[in-house]
């Protein structure tokens, strides 16, 4: 699910097609899925670091990072520059194992997240979250380029048995 | 030598010889500046350009430079002037020749070690030298040097550069 137009679509498309992905659907959202799949699955980059590629911090922030982080983010940006998604977007990517939400790095689109017990809510508007969960434990507006990651905790899910998946929320993104 | 560090802090004209291309535009613009009409074509046409440039270009082969009065701190020309025409202004430090006082005895030409004072025989025989274009933002020779060989800066003369 994606809200916005990707200005870097041409570059992203070429990047993923270099790794065998075929962009056939006539929507730019398609490339985000492939990017995610390429980086997370094929390139085995930890999901908590993907935002450093898709919405890489600005150089002026990178310059101010401590040495190790700078080296890391710089290398990511050198190698995966073509994977940077430029242009306004707020995306939610999910599968059975996780839900991942991300805003473009200069926050040209809204994104709100909230949590109640082990439920994680993500939306463009706060109102729609309130509709579903009137009083969440915590509600926040992630910064540009700051992901919201919910990883389904296999053990907990088994006990409930009611098909609901509880979310282990301690998997924070790599803060740099 | 006359170039003792002057009491007066002033901007002077300095040259980087290696960039003087011997085009002599400095001479031309100096003549125009000191002509009556101050318009280049009119000055050259009507004043038969016997207006002397106050800057002098010397050239041999590819070595060339423009040289003009250094407005020395201890100016020998001021000492040698018998009529009081040659004076160094206490505040601006500029050495100028008062055309009404100068009698054309050429003592200043006799003592100036740079040889940058010339005999102006067009009117009433007076010494002609650089007046640092005091009424201009920057001297016209500096302004019109196409290669920025001439600079108009304040430099601490006794610091060894």
């Amino acid at each position: 699910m994606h809200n916005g137009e990707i200005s870097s679509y041409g570059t992203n498309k070429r990047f993923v097609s270099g790794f065998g992905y075929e962009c056939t659907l006539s929507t730019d959202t398609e490339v985000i899925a492939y990017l995610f799949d390429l980086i997370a699955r094929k390139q085995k980059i930890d999901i908590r670091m993907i935002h450093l590629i898709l919405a890489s911090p600005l150089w002026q922030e990178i310059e101010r990072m401590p040495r190790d982080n700078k080296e890391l983010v710089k290398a990511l940006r050198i190698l995966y520059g073509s994977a940077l998604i430029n242009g306004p977007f707020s995306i939610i990517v999910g599968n059975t194992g996780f839900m991942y939400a991300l805003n473009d790095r200069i926050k040209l689109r809204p994104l709100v997240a909230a949590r109640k017990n082990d439920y994680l809510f993500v939306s463009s508007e706060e109102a729609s979250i309130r509709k579903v969960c009137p009083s969440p434990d915590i509600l926040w507006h992630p910064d540009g380029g700051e992901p919201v990651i919910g990883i389904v905790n296999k053990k907990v899910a088994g006990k409930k048995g009611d098909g609901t998946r509880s979310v282990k929320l301690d998997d924070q993104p790599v803060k740099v | 030598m006359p170039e003792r560090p002057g009491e007066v802090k002033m901007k002077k004209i300095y040259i980087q010889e290696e960039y003087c291309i011997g085009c002599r535009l400095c001479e031309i613009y100096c003549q125009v500046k000191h002509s009556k009409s101050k318009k280049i074509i009119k000055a050259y046409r009507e004043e038969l350009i016997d207006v002397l440039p106050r800057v002098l270009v010397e050239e041999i082969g590819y070595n060339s430079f423009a040289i003009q009065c250094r407005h020395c701190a201890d100016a020998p020309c001021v000492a040698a002037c018998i009529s009081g025409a040659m004076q160094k202004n206490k505040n601006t430090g500029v050495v100028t020749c008062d055309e009404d006082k100068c009698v054309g005895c050429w003592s200043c030409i006799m003592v100036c070690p740079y040889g940058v004072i010339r005999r102006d025989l067009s009117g009433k025989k007076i010494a002609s030298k650089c007046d640092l274009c005091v009424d201009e933002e920057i001297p016209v020779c500096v302004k019109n040097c196409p290669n920025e060989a001439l600079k108009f800066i304040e430099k601490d003369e006794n610091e060894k550069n």
Partner: protein
Amino acid sequence: MKKTKMIRKNNTKKNNKLIDYVIIGNSAAGLAAAESIRELDKTGKITVLSEEEHLNYSKPMITYFLTGSVDLKRISFKDREFYRVNNIDIRINTRVKSVDTDKMSLTVEDGSRIGFRKLLIASGGKPIIPRIRAAGAGSGEAVSFNAVDSMNYKKIGGISTLATLRDAIRIKDYLKKNSVKRISILGGGLIGLKAAEAFLDMGIDINIIELADRVLSATFDRQASGIIEEKIKSRGSKIYKNNTIEEVYITKGNISGYRLNDGRKMECRLLVIAVGVIPNTGFIYGGKVKIKRGILVDDRMQTSVKNIYAAGDVAEGLDILLKENKNIAIWPLAVMQGAVAGNNMAGGNKKYSGGFFMNSVEILQIPSISMGLTVIEDKREKDMEVLKDFNPVKHIYKKIVIRNSRIIGVILVGNIERAGIYAGLIRNEIDISSVRENISRENFGIIHLPADYKKHLVVGEGIEV
């Protein structure tokens, strides 16, 4: 009046009879000293004494006054404002009779005495008046004296020197009253030629009577003098060389003619005596102040007596070419010496770096400049060398005298462009062996100079000079 009130105000503590700085002489050296004293000592009392009645005037400009190109106002090189701004007490018509170096005081002709803490003698030079036999003009007319000398020459109409402004004024009046077609000048040296320059400009012919074999013999060689003599003769004026005046004829108190030592008799209504100048030291007695031709001074312009200084045409400072003290009576050195004297009198330690002879004179539109030791034909040492460039048609002559590859003398006639470059080379004793062949070129310039000295002149680095 305003000036004197200001002086009494600021030195009441000190013995106000004693003047801090007294300067004898109101010309180049004297006023240069006054100015440099004031630069260091803002409050000290400065008194300048002048035996003449004019505010101040520049001696070399006398001939320009004669021709009228300069009037009485314009002849002074420092205006009244100069004295006021520098708070200088100028006393004209104050001729010094004697200086007592023990009591550090001097007496003026009117008998008054002035005590001083520091004295500068800048009394300049006096014209030399040779003794010439005098006689009536043939008709046996009695003449009250048998010879013309320095004491009585002023009493004879038509005889004058051209050393002071008063001389020039008298000559100008004399010429107005008597129509004089030809003026005789005794002495073809610097002053004689300057006088000649003036009279020729005024359209009056001249006779120059010169003891040596050429005019400007002190500084010009035969070729250089030849150009000037040619030009003078071409204007109908005459030059009598190897000659002098044997006898002067006086008629009714005025000069009417003279006889040369080769016997020729000349008719003459005006004779200008210009044989030379000697330092004006007559008023210094007691022998404490060492005097050779001029007053001997060290490189601070101090005489042999402490707190007594001398500068200008009266002094004898270092001649950097002869490496000894020599009386060089020229304006630029007077100003430099005065400035050094004043600086030291006021507690500074400026040094006088020495000087050498130089002169610029223009005769009938031929400018000429001579510097240093130019006449060496007779005492030619082995390591001396002369470069010449002579173009009689264009009246251009250039002579450079070199001693162990340093320039010590220059004569420029006709083309004096950039002459000062040679002055710089002489003063800084620059070795020119590397650029010998360029030195005497017609369009000689800085670009022809030895690399280091050229760099110094053009961009200020190179050598420290």
